């Protein structure tokens, strides 16, 4: 595929998106190093990004339409991988069975990758439809495609990862012409149902104490045991606040993560590490970089040559924006602690690889914007 690269391809390639993504990832390496200077997470991340870039180039220069045509195959493989997690091949890390170990490939997290076949499968289905409002039948079929991987992820169980799939479906529905009144209805229903379900859940004990505590830590941080379930939220908030305007001052200022007050600093709480080390200036720069990246991708969606390509880009945009908001919101103590990685920043080979592959699709769609 690379062999058939034409000059035109290089000219039309969306260099801005690629460079932005690589810059954020490089910034991430620095922060992973800050999080745990005496561990090898950051060197691993460099290898991960190396592999991810290769994958990115391959996907970017491959015609996404051919890949969407093969979506059912990828989708089937994805479901098999997710199923393997539930078999003895699954590996438990930190009490969570979300990984699988395969010969030659090694250990990885299928739920990170399966987003892509899910997006492709949904884009293939909704991309072929013509104009007019989304019908109920179409929603059901899309919902069924979506339910396969998400159901398997919930069986792991990895609710945090499952949640990151929902923006994909939402984007698909929204951009396939779902009636605005359904959107309004869904928002209103959520506004009523979620607090209602919360109260019923608390009363019936369906929502476990630790889950309640995690929510309480957000609503009223002073009311929870600072050493209990509120610990992550409180320590992350302290770490962020301590960063101040420009971050750690001088050699003697040992970071929260090095002193192990901040848990999971290299992965889930990488944003808190960034905040402590680079301060408000660094954090706002990072958020601006994300905004730029998202804008650039959305611009690509506007120029996409077909509906499927537009849906691929926008679902990637929505999934990514949602993850950024969930992760940073958690680090800033406004959202409950859910193990959602920060795209391009958090250490983790599966996450960085799947993110670059997703961006590869975005770039690929844009590359072919002039094709009839």
């Amino acid at each position, binding site marked *: 595929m690379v062999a058939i690269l034409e000059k035109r391809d290089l000219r039309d390639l969306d260099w801005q998106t690629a460079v932005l993504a690589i810059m954020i990832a490089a910034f991430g390496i620095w922060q992973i190093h800050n999080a745990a200077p005496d561990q090898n997470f950051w060197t691993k991340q460099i290898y991960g990004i190396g592999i991810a870039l290769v994958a990115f180039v391959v996907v970017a220069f491959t015609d996404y339409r051919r890949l969407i045509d093969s979506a059912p195959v990828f989708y089937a493989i994805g479901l098999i991988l997710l199923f393997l997690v539930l078999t003895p091949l699954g590996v438990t890390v930190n009490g969570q069975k979300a990984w699988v170990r395969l010969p030659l490939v090694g250990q990885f997290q299928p739920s990170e990758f399966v987003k892509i076949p899910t997006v492709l499968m949904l884009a293939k289905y909704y991309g072929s439809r013509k104009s007019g409002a989304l019908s109920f039948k179409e929603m059901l079929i899309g919902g069924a495609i979506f339910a396969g991987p998400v159901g398997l992820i919930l069986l792991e169980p990895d609710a945090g990862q499952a949640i990151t799939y929902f923006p994909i479906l939402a984007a698909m529905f929204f951009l396939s012409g779902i009636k605005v009144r359904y959107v309004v209805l869904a928002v209103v229903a959520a506004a009523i149902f979620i607090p209602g379900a919360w109260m019923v859940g608390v009363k019936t004990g369906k929502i476990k104490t630790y889950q309640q505590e995690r929510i309480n830590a957000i609503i009223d941080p002073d009311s929870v045991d600072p*050493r209990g379930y509120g610990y992550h939220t409180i320590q992350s908030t302290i*770490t962020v*606040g*301590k960063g101040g305007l420009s971050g750690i001052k001088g050699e003697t200022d040992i970071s929260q993560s090095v*002193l192990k007050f901040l848990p999971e600093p290299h992965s889930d709480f990488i944003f808190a590490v960034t905040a402590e080390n680079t301060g*408000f200036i660094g954090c706002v720069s990072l*958020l601006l970089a994300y905004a730029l990246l998202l804008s650039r991708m959305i611009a690509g969606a506007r120029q996409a040559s077909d509906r499927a390509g537009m849906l691929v880009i926008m679902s990637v945009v929505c999934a990514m924006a949602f993850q950024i*908001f969930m992760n940073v919101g958690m680090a800033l103590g406004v959202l409950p602690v859910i193990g959602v990685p920060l795209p391009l920043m958090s250490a983790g080979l599966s996450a960085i690889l799947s993110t670059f592959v997703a961006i590869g699709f975005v770039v690929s769609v844009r590359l072919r914007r002039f094709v009839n």
Partner: protein
Amino acid sequence: MKLNDHVQNLGARVFTIQVLAFVLLTLLGSRLYYLQIVKGDYYSERAENQRIRLIPIPAPRGAIFDRNGKLLVDSRPTYNVVLSNEPLKNINVNERVDDYSRGLGLERQFVVERLNLIKKQNEFEAMVLKENVGIQDITWVESHSLEFPELRVELQPQRHYPLGTSLAHVLGYVGEISPKQLEDPAMREKGFRPGDVIGKGGLEQYYDEFLRGRPGYRKVIVDSRGRVQAEVEKVDPQSGQDLVTTIDYDLQLAAENELANSSTKRGTIIAMDPNTGGILAMASAPSFDPNIFVQGSSTPEGRRQIAAYWQDEKRPLYNRAIQGRYPPGSTWKIPESMGALIQGVITPSHSNMACGGGITIGSKFTRCMGSHGSPPLSYAITKSCDGYYYRLGLKMGVEGLINMIETFGYDKRSGIDLPNEKVPQTPKTWMPYILKHEGKWSDIRTVYASIGQDTVVVTPISMLRAVASIGMHGKMYTPHFLQEFRAIGPVGDEGDSTYMPARPNFGFQHPEPKIIPMTDDQYDVMVKGMWGVVNGGGTAGSIRIAGFDIAGKTGTAQVAELGKDSGKNKDHAWFVSFAPAFKPEIAVIALIENSGFGGANAAPAARAVYSAYIAKKGLPKTDGQEVASR
């Protein structure tokens, strides 16, 4: 596909998503602004508070020496098992009780108390769980470091009393500050905290402030599990000042030896330099081992031993020299005679009073032990004629006795530099009570009071001080142990907030001696009488030392009525004295509880102290010829 081609309004929908994404990012940005810019200092401080710890470095306590440089108390390095509360926060401490008590051989009850106490402390505080541990306990702690991260072994100086039971009442002991002491706001102000070691009893308590060092500390950065990661600052401790006492340990040993060999093994002997008030020896028997209090408070057998001390009816913990109050018996006649002379009730030339073999008050006859005719004062002293004093007491009246009591300070503490000194009880103390309950002060009470019985109980130290002042021609000094506190150099750099300035040396701040006005005649007749007690065929003639004129007075104080005065109710034996009689260098008082006659039981004990003194100093140049010439 161009979005605006479609009727689904896709352009607007994409734009909506873009706006939504930007709104969310802006929300995050404003939250960041709040946390980092608005509340940045607050969170910096919180981060600082959870990582900075002060680890105290205990300061060595000053040593205590006798006047010749003999070491009486010091501190030696010991290994303690220390319990820190940080790792305990998240566990149920009750699970630890059995492990600790089995592993370290501690009493369950003690472990429970310790755990409860440590749980109440601030974060990152530590407390001693077991003191003075051996290799076995150290190995146990080290091998269970993963299981019990809250335990660690620390090297700390521990108070050591090499003399054991010897001198224990004077030295006192140290121990952890009690919860009750901590309730005192003054103590809190001085910065005392639970677990601090403080002087308890004796010189350790009285001079705690000077003996105590000032602890240093290490300011460290700890990680989330409380493990030290880096040191920010270190302030060295400043040792306490060494205390040099006036004690002469050779005399002390002689005194203790006498008590140990006495018939009841209960009593007290004090030796004092009458020229200064410096105490040369102070023995009280039975005694206790202060080391038990220092080392044993955490072990079952140590606690049993301490409980036994408290329950022992012989009261080994109490310093009879300053806390014991005994009827003085005939020793009381010395201050009484001097008082009568000062008040002019008798004069040196007209001091004769009838003995009469006793006296009849109302229908009750109170006898004298002998029949002495109508003796002059010195003879009455030498022979301890009760009949003489019955009449002298009546002639002085209770007001005269009270006047004398005030003259010799029996209504106050002696001011010795030991805690918990008791004030004697005298007719002055009793007067309001008697008047209230009996309407008047009867003559029979005056008669009893005149021979140091009934309403009179005094501390041995008050008696020694009063009698010694007569030997000093009326100069009454404050008894004390402090000779010198040695200087300690400064720690740190001047101007630093942690600078600890030098602690200069200082000696006992002698109050002006109380002057008891007496004429040469009065002094002469008194000392001659006392000289006669030992050297002129008096009640203590058996202890005479050739070439060393002891002036003294025996006392045989009734504990129970006549006829019941045997066994444990036997009389207390007293002997109070100074020597050489007309140029005193040393004053000695001996009291042997329930042993019988003073001349036979107390006087020989005092003599042994004098012998020890002579053995060290040699006989004085002037001898008995001087007395004989008077």
